[in-house]
């Protein structure tokens, strides 16, 4: 199976990757490509980093549970939920270290450059003082580059050059595989990392399969502001975001050569976050979702003669966004998110359905619902629910769905659209019917897979028309 190596650079890269994981879990199609996420963020203590790593691990476990049928027998990928294989680079190659290993040093940038070893009248010392401020040199690298691409460029370059993980990428990138880079343009890590990594890949003459891999990238333009740094004491000033973006764009215009370069952004800095570079507890945002959708678009496209610049619009400038204001291009996303939210509802209901027919016919009994596999799935889907809630509550909000819970009317679940299913019993019935169909093909005995497939088939009966 062909792979797409998805490099996620910096905090925004991680957050976009979270959207990729969530959308992939909901059934977004990758055109047959397996996803290999590669997280590049020097800020290893960042909670978002830990959460994303855990979420990827949870996804992989769920996928494995859905595709194993005992005695080393492997099943095809399920249709619908969790239909794409995600593999960590470290699982492809057991020898390499974590992508962030080289960056975890608790050094300041000045220590990293060994500025102290330079004599005061050394010309290199003058050069460094010209390019970098004192704050730049004092910054600890373990919390990232604090929006300074001039710092990021130096550190990341060395980080990529000597890293085991990059060697592993070179070894495992095969003919037909693709590369996708996710970064922001207004910060430090992403803005510096994207052109650097792209150059490294495009100039890799020793590995033609790497050099010739179809490459896509999404660069996220400013979409949030941060509290005033004079009151928060942070080293990041969001009023510089646009200036930095303009500077980076003028550089990208001449230097980047990705086959497809997607731009995702907002008209203004609508969302405002706490200015705390150590925590960066930012809520999921619509722009990250748009950036994530670029990956699926890229995977459906063929090589062009010249680099293509792409972007994505919405139909109406509304806040929050609904299915009509989003426009037809977002229907697939809305449909998949609806499916997953309905799945979440069913996962709440099913353990209490003591007389559900699949209990007898497919073994979806008390033991199954108490099993760790089901627990892990439920936990993941709860994370998905939380992610959607964050999207809906952020500015600008992505809120095509009404809140629904057990026993509530489901016809108006999607704002501005009517679903035929009045309540959850409609979906439960379709699950049973899905189980009754294609019986022979489903005789693998994997109860977890039965749940995933029948729930998806049942739900899509009512949401396919979206």
């Amino acid at each position, binding site marked *: 199976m062909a792979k797409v190596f998805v490099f996620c650079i910096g905090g925004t890269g991680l957050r976009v990757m979270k959207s990729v994981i969530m959308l992939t879990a909901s059934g977004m199609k990758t055109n047959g490509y397996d996803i290999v996420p590669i997280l590049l963020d020097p800020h290893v203590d960042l909670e978002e980093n830990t959460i994303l790593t855990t979420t990827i691990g949870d996804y992989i476990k769920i996928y494995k549970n859905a595709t194993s049928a005992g005695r080393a027998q492997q099943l095809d990928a399920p249709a619908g939920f969790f239909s794409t294989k995600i593999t960590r680079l470290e699982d492809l190659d057991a020898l390499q270290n974590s992508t962030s290993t080289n960056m975890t040093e608790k050094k300041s940038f000045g220590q990293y450059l060994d500025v102290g070893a330079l004599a005061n009248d050394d010309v290199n010392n003058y050069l460094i003082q010209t390019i970098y401020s004192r704050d730049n040199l004092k910054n600890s690298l373990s919390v990232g580059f604090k929006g300074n691409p001039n710092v990021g460029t130096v550190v990341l370059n060395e980080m990529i050059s000597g890293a085991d993980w990059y060697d592993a990428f070179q070894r495992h990138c095969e003919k037909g595989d693709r590369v996708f880079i996710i970064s922001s343009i207004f910060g430090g890590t992403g803005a510096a990392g994207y052109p650097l990594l792209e150059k490294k890949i495009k100039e890799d003459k020793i590995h033609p399969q790497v050099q010739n891999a179809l490459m896509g990238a999404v660069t996220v333009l400013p979409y949030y502001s941060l509290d005033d740094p004079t009151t928060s004491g942070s080293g990041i000033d969001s009023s510089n975001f646009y200036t930095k973006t303009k500077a980076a764009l003028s550089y990208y215009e001449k230097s980047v050569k990705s086959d497809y370069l997607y731009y995702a952004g907002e008209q203004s800095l609508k969302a405002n976050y706490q200015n705390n570079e150590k925590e960066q507890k930012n809520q999921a945002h619509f722009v990250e979702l748009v950036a994530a959708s670029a990956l699926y678009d890229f995977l459906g496209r063929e090589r062009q003669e010249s680099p293509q610049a792409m972007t994505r619009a919405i139909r109406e400038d509304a806040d929050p966004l609904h299915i009509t204001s989003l426009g037809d291009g977002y229907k697939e996303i809305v449909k998949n998110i609806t499916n997953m939210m309905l799945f979440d509802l069913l996962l709440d209901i099913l353990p209490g359905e003591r*007389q*559900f027919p699949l209990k*007898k*016919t497919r073994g979806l009994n008390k033991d199954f619902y108490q099993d760790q596999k089901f627990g892990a799935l439920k936990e993941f889907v709860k994370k998905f629910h939380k992610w959607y809630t964050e999207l809906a509550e952020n500015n600008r909000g992505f809120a095509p769905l009404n809140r629904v819970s057990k026993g509530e009317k489901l016809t108006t679940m999607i704002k501005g659209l009517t679903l035929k*299913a009045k309540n959850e*019993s*409609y979906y*439960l*019935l379709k699950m049973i019917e899905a189980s009754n169909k294609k019986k022979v093909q489903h005789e693998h005995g994997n109860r977890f897979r039965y749940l995933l497939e029948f729930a998806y088939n049942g739900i899509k009966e009512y949401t396919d028309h979206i």
Partner: protein
Amino acid sequence: MELMDLYKWGLPNQGEYLNKYRDNESLYNMARSLWNSLDSESFYFMITFIAIGLVLVCFYYYVYNKWPGRKYRIQHWALWLGITGVVTIIAILCLGSALVTSNLQEKFGFILRISLISGIYAILIYFVASLIICNIPVPTNAYRFLKIGK
């Protein structure tokens, strides 16, 4: 075994019943005629309760369970069990009244008893048919709570 044997356990003894009219020949003949009539029509009663039991059990498993609303729950099965009994009683009451001609007062009582007994038989048929359906590999959306084993 005569068909009337199906209902004997819920009806008075034939001999004792006819003996009540031994002093009045006309009434005795009417009573005997009523009994014979019930006996001869009991075939239709039997066909009716079997048909109702089977039709409603099939309706429950293969039609009613195609409707949303958690129809697979046992309470719905029980509801149709009850409906089977009631429909059978009403159907046999109507059928008995139409087929059995007698001016004796006991006619309605006998037909009512036969209807109630038929209702019980229809319920038994519904139950036995459910047991079979739950254990054969024919798809149904209902919960196979009568399935034996795993």
